[in-house]
């Protein structure tokens, strides 16, 4: 069997994880630390991929990334049916997991600690960098691991925007589908075992991180 789908999945998940680290942290900080009235709308929109059918998410992405979408019109960049489109699809579905975990961790940082930093001469960005993020790191890391596991397993939306082109955009979940359809169960078993093991390790790591994040909250 070809190992290409597995390595492509790893690559897509890795880039998507980097993406949700940047976008997710910014969103989590915004949601946890501002009191704008429109906040709840942003949060709900961001959480939609958790409950929408993957095909619906994929359809929306097709519109946004497609020929008449803003990406093509404004930047003349067409990513449809490339591995970059798979990255975008993975990011969209993984983002809410990252943001929810990071936001909860940021909110649980004692505001007195941030006030203490203020009276000690820190600017607001310094406070985020030296107090808030270090204290929320376990929740952020947990969100990141969950998000990357979700990105690794992304199927529906990826199929819609990146297609299922063997050797180009066929990720491991898509390859498993193809293998089962074609009756190549040995290939399917290998990939299924690998993905299951990776997901198990991720969830195991997250559950090891959560209780400590809570302990840290109370010892301030």
């Amino acid at each position: 069997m070809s190992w290409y789908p597995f390595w492509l999945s790893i690559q897509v998940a890795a880039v998507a994880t980097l993406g949700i680290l940047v976008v997710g942290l910014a969103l989590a900080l915004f949601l946890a630390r501002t009191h704008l009235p429109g906040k709840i709308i942003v949060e709900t929109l961001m959480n939609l991929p958790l409950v929408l059918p993957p095909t619906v998410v994929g359809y929306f992405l097709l519109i946004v990334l497609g020929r008449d979408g803003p990406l093509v019109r404004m930047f003349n960049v067409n990513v449809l049916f490339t591995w970059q489109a798979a990255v975008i699809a993975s990011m969209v579905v993984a983002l809410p997991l990252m943001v929810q975990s990071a936001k909860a961790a940021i909110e649980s940082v004692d505001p007195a600690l941030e006030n203490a930093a203020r009276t000690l001469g820190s600017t607001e960005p310094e406070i985020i960098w030296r107090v808030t993020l270090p204290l929320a790191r376990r929740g952020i890391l947990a969100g990141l691991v969950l998000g990357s596991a979700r990105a690794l397993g992304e199927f529906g939306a990826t199929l819609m925007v990146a297609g299922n082109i063997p050797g180009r955009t066929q990720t491991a979940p898509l390859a498993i589908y193809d293998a089962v359809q074609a009756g190549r169960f040995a290939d399917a078993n290998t990939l299924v075992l690998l993905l299951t093991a990776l997901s198990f390790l991720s969830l195991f790591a997250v559950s090891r991180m959560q209780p400590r994040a809570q302990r840290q909250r109370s010892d301030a």
Partner: protein
Amino acid sequence: MLDAQIERHLGDFDLRVSFHIDSQVLVLFGSSGAGKTLTLHCLAGLITPDRGCIRLGDRVLFDHAARVNVPARARRIGYVFQHYALFPHLTVRENIAFGIRHMPDARQRVDQLLELVGLTALETRHPAQLSGGQQQRVALARALAPRPELLLLDEPFSALDAPTRTELRREVLALQRALGIPMIFVTHDLGEAYFLADRLAVIDAGRILQIDAPGEILRQPCCLRVAQAVGVKNILPGTVVASDSAGCRVRVGDVTLDAPRYDFAPGARVFVCLRPERVMLIRPERVGQSSSENALHGEIVREMNEGMNVTLYFRADGARLMAEQDYDIQIELPMYIFDRLNLARERRWTVSLRKNAMHLFS
């Protein structure tokens, strides 16, 4: 050194305070919810007042009219928080260095502060590995590190056990005297307030009711709420019946008391207050031998033993001061006096409400 007029509404709470201090300790004393912490937050720049003006030394930190609002980080005001608020991810040394890491002499400064608070041996520990008293010492050193021009302490010792609290109070006062830095200390503990304060401000429901030397406030509370706050147990409502240069005579219940001179006209409704530890007990057979101003005969109807001290509830025979309760006067004395006078057995006494121990307010 510090001049502050602060007004701030928060929900249905309304803070309106103004005060001035030099290089000394001002204690804000009051129950929880009185506005003490809010006052400190306004001074430190953590909350913006609605109106007012805050001046520290020759700098204007806040002026509503002139639209000046210096951010907290530039105010040079140290803050010691109630629950320490040490950074749990940093060591003792890193915590103290937090506010001065850009300074060229930061290292020596931290060494010096570690020594000052006696924590040199613990510099590599994290806050979770320290006792409460040690944590608060770190918080103190951290707040002092950037050489603030004013230090605010928000009930810093309320979570500590009594011996540690006493020790830290002494250290803080010694530190203040050595550094000459003005300090505002918030507490709801009267003993602590009295011990630390050069000036004491009694604050209630967002207002400073009285601000004065602590001895003055204990002797001469300005109003009912201050008297209650500073532990005056005998607050007797009465009416002035006569007033001249020798003193006032005040009708309380069925009794007319001789009180010191105050500017009240006859007919004025006043409160007579008398601290429970200043009531004199006289054995019935010795009445007449010693001074017995405002003597009342009666008996001790019950007592409340608080370990080191005991509070006696005394009811007068016949003419009563407070007919609606089962006692007239509360008397507080040390337990060893209680034992020596055999008060558990001997219940009939005469009390003297000494004229110069009394204080009147309207």
